[in-house]
């Protein structure tokens, strides 16, 4: 399919944007990446996602699809044959979707709120929450990977993408706060998985560098300070 038929509206630092990028890479689909600029939303974005006005948005043959995990499932369904992103067994699929929902609804909000925590006590409470979540995810990894290297088994899959897209920011947060949230004692499996994931061919070109995210966090904080309350 011609490259111009597949467009992705996004931004390099967004973990949610990373998800469809990895999915498209897995399927070897070429696409045009339309980078949004912090502080202004393009006309195309506002037209393609009038409900949320958020990235990512996949535009395929002129039709927009929104919400990162909805996009990933769409990519998996449209470009098949191609390596499968979701597992084939319905129970394994349910498990992957369950954990992705946990990540987006519980784990990531706690992690994101660390940055804006009102005091040290609140920050510590959130970091504990993130740490506890990682222990749960370590258990999920054992269960889903069945002894292989990824949540998806031999190959990266839906849950690898859903979780792995947060790794860059997790590392940036560890650096900014001088803590280790993923470590050898509590989450040895995840630590190893994180390395494999970030160096995977479908991932490494879109995986943001920790240093760049740390710098971007400062820019983001300044920008947010200028917004009306």
């Amino acid at each position, binding site marked *: 399919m011609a490259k111009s038929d597949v467009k992705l509206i996004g931004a390099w630092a967004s973990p949610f944007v990373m998800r469809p990028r990895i999915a498209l890479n897995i399927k070897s689909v070429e696409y045009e990446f339309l980078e949004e600029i912090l502080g202004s939303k393009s006309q195309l974005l506002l037209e393609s996602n009038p409900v949320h006005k958020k990235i990512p948005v996949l535009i395929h043959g002129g039709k927009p699809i929104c919400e990162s995990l909805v*996009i990933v499932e*769409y990519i998996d*369904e*449209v470009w098949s044959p191609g390596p499968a992103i979701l597992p084939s067994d*319905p129970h394994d699929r*349910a498990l992957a979707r*369950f954990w992705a*929902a*946990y990540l987006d609804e519980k784990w990531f909000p706690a992690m994101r709120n660390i940055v804006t925590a009102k005091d040290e006590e609140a920050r510590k409470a959130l970091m504990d929450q993130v740490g506890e979540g990682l222990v749960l995810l370590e258990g999920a990894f054992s269960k889903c990977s069945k002894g292989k290297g990824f949540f998806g088994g031999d190959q990266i899959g839906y849950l690898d993408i859903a979780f792995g897209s947060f790794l860059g920011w997790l590392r940036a947060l560890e650096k900014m706060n001088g803590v280790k949230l993923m470590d050898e004692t509590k989450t040895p499996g995840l630590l190893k998985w994180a390395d494999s994931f970030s160096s995977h061919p479908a991932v490494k070109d879109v995986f943001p560098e920790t240093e760049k995210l740390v710098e971007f966090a400062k820019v983001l904080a300044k920008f947010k300070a200028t917004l009306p309350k």
Partner: protein
Amino acid sequence: MGEVQALQNTMGEVKVIGSSKSLFCTRVEWALKLKGVEYEYLEEDLLNKSTLLLQHNPVHKKVPVLVHNNKPVAESLVILEYIDETWKHNSLLPEDPHERAMARFWAKFADEKCLMGAFMAFWKEGEEKEKAIESALESFTFLEKQIQGKKFFSGDDNIGYFDLVMGWIPLWLNVMEEVGGMKLDDPQKFPSLHEWAQNFNEIPLIKDCLPPRDALVNYFNFTVNYNRSMAEAKQ
């Protein structure tokens, strides 16, 4: 082998751990009934959770949990997709990938903005309540557009995934409006949505799974009083 026998052989052992007042649990029952799948319903006392529930949903400790051949599936939307993928006849989700993506997108929106919006409008008081109502009404406007010109969200003939996801509106929202003192499902503001709600609730298998209205009113009154007394105890 007859179709019914073949279906029953593939069903395996299906249990639903749920609470009859929970709209999330009713969604699951509706889906199973649409597929003709027989199941055992295990009613949970949410103030005194069973070992079985805690075992099968240790992460959230919530209902519903579908247990199929002893393997649990939690989270109502995840369960709906599992049911659709395991019992493939009478599809809940559309065939076309773009339409499937739309159904999933709207389901997420409806749960996050409309359902949670309704709960916020129900729980909050004073100025916060007004704001919550306004916000929920904005979200409902999107849904009104989606249903315009259609009998059901999934088309004109049969209900599907998104109708089930929205299925809380005819009864649960109605009760929340009464107990919570707010109006969201306004037939003047949202005529198409209102009509959809009437049509949806008339479907026999939908009606069969609904809890009695009085029981639901009592339940919501109870939760309001319970939470108020917990809040007072803290002060």
